[in-house]
């Protein structure tokens, strides 16, 4: 086993998929010689050349639309949107086109497309380099939405995304690119799109999270175990669409209490759907109100560090929410 950072695991997955399948190519802004602004594609241009690692014009909707067209022609594009905040010009192509193509053609055409985008705050990126955009897309049947929180899952899920016959949005917690490290086996393996992962087993309550917040939630669970003797189960949702209802319900049967954590703002965020699943199908198992810890309902993460800290959930805030819920 080798210990890799999150971003190196992502790069390794792309490298191995480029090697494995000549139909796989990468396009996006600065993905070529520059190796991506975060270095996710570093070295791949030199290894595979400009035909397969393609610098795009500075235009997000066509990065996605070119990917859709290439996917229709049976290639396997990996499209990088430099920051999730910049994905909105491509919204029509993702939501009206990629997501609906299979359905609208009665199953004739398919769009095996991966859209990678770094998301999330805490990096002084302010309003337009910090957004969490997942909830816009988890509302759209036809899309799959994946957010890894460990290097192992990052590699395995990205490989699954490349091999999936559907459009997959793969959001990467950029604050964790180098901060999150973990063991990654060399060579080929996949992590299936769909199932959530029990990141930590526990009995007292369940915390549901994904991405950077899943990482923080495990840290918070360890903190309250140490300091308060609380035994918190952490479910890393990792695939947000399709929703893994079974994992949500299995855990709540065991613990009876649910805390949902995401850095996207609260209202209509992904936590609302988890709460709805719990209310609808897990009602009789609940021993306490379903709680959500999320970013405040302001347009986006502000720049100054004081306001950014206020916006972002962190292990201390999550631990406090765990204690509060445990006492109910």
């Amino acid at each position, binding site marked *: 086993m080798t210990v890799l950072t999150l971003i190196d695991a992502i790069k390794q997955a792309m490298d191995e998929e480029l090697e494995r399948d000549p139909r796989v190519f990468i396009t996006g802004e600065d993905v070529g010689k520059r190796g991506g602004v975060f270095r996710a594609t570093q070295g791949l241009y030199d290894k595979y050349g400009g035909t397969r690692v393609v610098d795009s014009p500075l235009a997000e*909707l066509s990065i996605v*639309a070119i990917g859709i*067209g290439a996917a229709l*022609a049976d*290639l396997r594009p990996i499209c990088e949107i430099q920051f999730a905040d910049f994905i909105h010009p491509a919204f029509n192509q993702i939501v009206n086109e990629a997501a609906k193509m*299979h359905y*609208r053609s*009665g199953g004739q055409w398919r769009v095996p497309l991966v859209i990678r985008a770094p998301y999330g705050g805490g990096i002084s990126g302010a309003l337009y380099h910090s957004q969490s955009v997942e909830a816009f897309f988890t509302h759209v049947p036809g899309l799959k939405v994946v957010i890894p929180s460990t290097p192992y899952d990052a590699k395995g899920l990205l490989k699954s995304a490349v091999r999936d016959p559907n459009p997959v949005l793969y959001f990467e917690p950029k604050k964790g690119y180098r901060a999150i490290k973990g063991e990654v086996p060399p060579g080929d393996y996949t992590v299936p799109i769909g199932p959530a992962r029990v990141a930590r087993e526990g009995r007292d309550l369940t915390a549901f999270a994904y991405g950077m917040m899943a990482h923080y939630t495990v840290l918070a669970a360890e903190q309250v175990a140490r300091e308060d003797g609380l035994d918190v189960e952490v479910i890393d949702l990792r695939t947000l669409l399709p929703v893994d209802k079974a994992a949500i319900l299995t855990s709540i049967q065991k613990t009876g209490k649910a805390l949902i954590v995401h850095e996207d703002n609260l209202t209509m965020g992904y936590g609302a759907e988890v709460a709805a699943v719990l209310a609808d199908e897990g009602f009789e198992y609940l021993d306490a109100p379903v709680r959500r810890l999320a970013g405040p309902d302001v347009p986006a993460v502000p720049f100054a560090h004081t306001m950014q800290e206020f916006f972002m959930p962190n292990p201390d805030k999550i631990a406090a929410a765990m204690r509060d819920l445990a006492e109910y």
Partner: protein
Amino acid sequence: MATRIFACPSARLKPEQLLEMFWLMLLSRRLDERAWALHRQGKIAFHISGMGHEGAQVGAAFAINRGVDYVHPYYRDLALALALGITPTDFMMSLFGKKDEYSSKARQMPSHFGSKKLNIISGSSPVATQVPQAAGLAFAIKYKQQTGLLDPDDTSQPRLALACLGEGSTSQGEWHEGMNWAGVHRLPFICLVQNNLYAISVPLEGQMAVPHVADRAAAYGVKGVWVDGNDVLAVYDVMAEAAQRAYRGEGPTLVEAKTYRPVPHSSDDDDRSYRSREEVEEWKKKDPILRFEKHLMDEGILTQEQLDEYETRARAAVDHAQHAAEAAPDPDETDALGEVYAD
């Protein structure tokens, strides 16, 4: 500035090819007329017409490798679709929204043509979305040729991508971004703009400050050509040149076919509010079918007797298609649930 191409590939078309082109234009018109009648009778919910565009579309279709090259059409492309292999019954099944309708299993409105086996991409209703996707298809062709996945001379495989749209749709950012990719990567791509002078009610001068859509091509390093879209052979000529450029790896072409829509935008539109009857009547005299008919008769390729026989055949084909569609079952309610994800 846009340039005219003076090469004349249409001179090499055989009489039977010319007659097939004429037949498809006529069949499309009669099918289209029936659709309007069915809507007036309250039998169908919606129709959007390709009338007046038949010359541009059939001329374009015959210039590419039909049913093999990728085509990403738009909602006026009935004659193009017929020329690529869609049948009158297919179209009628769409109008009536019947079970297992060929393009979308009756999920989409009519005239959203699409067929995997004919390499016609299923389109949506927001305009110009197909342009950057078609550039993506062309990108894939070039990619496969460069990486050895495809033999550039294999005519059983797609060697170009054609996108169709109206002139109003060229105001969309999606058109710009698609054209830009096509130019930057010198893609085997043809953008056929069927300029009928109106985007529903808004005339050309409300869409752009240049006289020809083709003028815009220069900004992308793309060859721009405009042509009389009511002259099927003139369209064939410029499209054949554009296709050969694509096949030879010489890059993309923007073809602007200047035509007219002699009917309202759709069955929900009333064009009397935005243009005069005199204008419409003037354009009807330039009808592409009447014009081609006269040409073929002048050349001794088509006789009155043959024309009468074509009309009889067209009527029978349209009748048959209508009856087949009317007799077909409706989709089951739960057909709404299928094919959300590919397996």
